[in-house]
């Protein structure tokens, strides 16, 4: 057991746990941030996606010591019902989801995409989400929602 410092959703936190604890377990069990989901534990489904220094990463495959000192953003850091991120608003507007289990991971992947490409095509959005599994088949809506958020963010920037 050892104490590690990291930044989560803008807050400095210290976590005392084994160095090889998966970041996903740190978030869910040590910090109570259960928005990030377990799907497979072996980096195949994208349910556990978070941003590490702005890049989308599967938190099940990252260790606590590996992310020490890094800047992590989870779904809880994306927005709140009071201050929603345009992506979250667009997912609500498009009613993009069924069971919704996949959505936090998908929203994080989408955020990473829009940060680097503010005007992605449908194909570019799809490719950016290929690491995320949605078994309910909400894909068509999710693709529309990401495009809608991108358009809204571009408009916001233009103002």
């Amino acid at each position, binding site marked *: 057991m050892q104490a590690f410092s990291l930044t989560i959703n803008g807050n400095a936190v210290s976590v005392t*746990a*084994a160095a090889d*604890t*998966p970041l996903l*377990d740190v978030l*869910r*069990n040590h910090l*109570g*941030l*259960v*928005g*990030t*989901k*377990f*799907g*497979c*534990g*072996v980096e*195949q*489904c994208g*349910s556990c996606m978070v941003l590490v220094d702005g890049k989308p990463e599967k938190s099940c495959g990252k260790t606590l010591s590996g992310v020490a000192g890094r800047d992590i953003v*989870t*779904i*809880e850091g*994306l*927005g*709140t*019902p009071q201050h*929603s991120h345009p992506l*979250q608003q667009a*997912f*609500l507007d498009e*009613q993009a*989801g*069924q*069971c*919704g*289990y*996949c*959505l*936090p991971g998908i*929203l994080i992947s989408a955020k990473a995409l829009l940060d680097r490409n503010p005007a992605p095509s449908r*194909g570019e*959005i*799809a*490719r950016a*989400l*290929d690491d*995320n*599994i*949605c*078994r*309910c*088949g*909400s*894909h*068509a*809506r*999710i*693709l529309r929602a990401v495009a809608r958020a991108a358009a809204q963010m571009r408009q916001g920037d233009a103002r």
Partner: protein
Amino acid sequence: MSDAAPAMLPPALIDNPRLDQWVGFAEPGHVRVATGKVEIGQGVLTAMVQIAAEELDIMPERIRLDAGDTDLTPNEGYTSGSQSIQFGGVALRLACAEVRGLFLDHAAAVSGHPRAELAVRDGAIIRGGEPTGHDYWSLAGAIDLGRAATGRTPIKRAGEHTVVGTNAPRVDLAAKIFGEAVFVHDMALDGMVHARLVRQPRRGATIATVDEAAIRRAAKGPIELVRDGNFLAIVGADETVVEAVAAIAPGHVAWDGVDPINPFQEEARWLLQQPSIDRTIGAPPADPASGARRREASFTRMHIAHASVAPSCAMAVYRDGRLEVWTHSQGVYPLRAALARTLKLDPSTISVRHVQGPGCYGHNGADDAAADAAVIAFKTPGTPVRVRWRREEEFGFERVSPAMVTTVSATLDASGRPADWTTEIWSGRHTSRPGGGGNLLAAEALPDPPPPPPPTESSNAPGAGTRNGDPLYAFPAKRIVHHLIAETPVRTSSLRGLGATLNVFAIESFMDELAEAAGVDPVAYRLSVLADPRARAVVERAAAMSGWQPPSSPSPASGRGQPPSSPSPASGGGQGGGAAGRGRGIAFARYKNLAAYAAIVAEVEIDESVRVTRVWCASDAGLVINPDGAINQLEGGIVQAISWALKEGVRLDTAGISSRDWDTYPVLRFSEVPEIECELVGAVTDNPPLGIGEASGGPTVAAIGNAVAQALGTRLRDLPLTRERVMAALLKA
């Protein structure tokens, strides 16, 4: 109000007759509504709120909905079979209408105003648009809802609806989008421990040895082993520690009685050689003398996994002689009964509460995970126990949808239309829920396990393996021959669509073959044998949406169904033999022949492997409570069916299911999802609501099959339509 003959009550109201089981006004300003149906991603909570708000004339925001809780809600069995709205919603609708009527009767009596002049507006009793001073809450004390529903109060007509038929946003979606703790996986109780199972590899297998020392050595923190018979679990406060031990523990447990299975059985043709329970329903056997113009074709598919995006999870605590279980099971009451049998407890001492999980699409590991948690909790009183299955455990031990063979044959009349039709089906059982003759995995591992469930399954409509085996077409004589296979290499149970998926694929593929042989456009051919006007309407609508073009000449592969301008660089559509091609196909079914109608047109491109590029869907689901929710269900079914058609099949090795991750069990990814266009035909109507959740799957698979046949110039009859199968077909052509 009519005093007509006693109404036919829906089964849910017969089973749960008291109105106070459905509606209550204890909390001022709010209405408690209860449903025995549960949210599995299909939007049922939202639809139930809309139904109740409509018939009670209150704002949806006032409704507090309880769903799937043995302490709080009616017993409506399972949330399955696309029946939640068609049956559960209809029951709730009648109950709410009756409650509103009772309040109006009472308001008329106490106010002296004629009943006909009174109405309800957001819970207040009004007259001529003005408040009367009475409302649901002020009158509630005087009205005993502990009375049986009569089902005689008229419900609103479609034209009067203000909430039903609107696209109310999903009541559960925002919390998911903001990452709140909505899933059973996200529950945390004080003092809870985490548990993982070392699964019994096969029914009847017994533990020979457990190297406890080795297991404990691997633990980087405190753990306990909980063992009873062949039930073995690892328990500890730190999930990371428990998970790591669970990953290595199976290597330290030796089992007896694990017979190897035959990996050859991953493809379905072995079913034809198995002993079976045989039944024929429908027309008497065909006259063999009439076989002059007889055609036949046989279709197969492998076992299919539910493959929920996350493995199953449950929480349980046994405290003060009461067992409390939180689960994403589709049936809290049947699960409670099964847990009572397993633990030899009185069911009244068990509370089972539904908490949402990842979409399940049928009988996945949810019930079994709940039983695991319940058994461990029972053995460790006072401690809340959280069981989360491992990913490979879900793939390896959930019940899968059985492999199937469906052979269709027809004797044709002079016009090339079937005069006599047979659908012959070979399948393992599609129904082994704990309330439907199946065993919980935990029960099989505990001492004194229940006997293997007998292979029983009704062949009669709506059927399970035989589902949709009876085509809706107006053929003079039709029959189903059902071979229920008793022994399957792996446990099987229900998956969205059950037997309908392969049966519709077989029937609708064969219809295209017959149309082609008759030299008739597939749409026109279907319409020529389709009498039901609602069926005709969806076929015509889907064809119109896609710009379907009848063939320019009767030659079978002349680019029928091609869009008016379809210059694809890869186009060799329908000419056959090319390395690449493009095609369109149509297919139709009415799910169970009693739920929603759906017709699908699919467009594919083939360049070694199949790519679905466009899908059009027209569906008639009668009165639709929430059109956007219904379309969401159609779309989801379409995407899942594309995945089934192109990619999915459970892999077996001698140890059992070997496809235990997303690499070996691939599903459709975002880049592979086509543009999808869905339309509801006749949604504002007084036709009763029809279940829509499973309507699009079978027709989608079949439309893809027909499109592929057109593109390749040869038909693939075994699912999935993989690159290997396409290449083999191209080589043969």
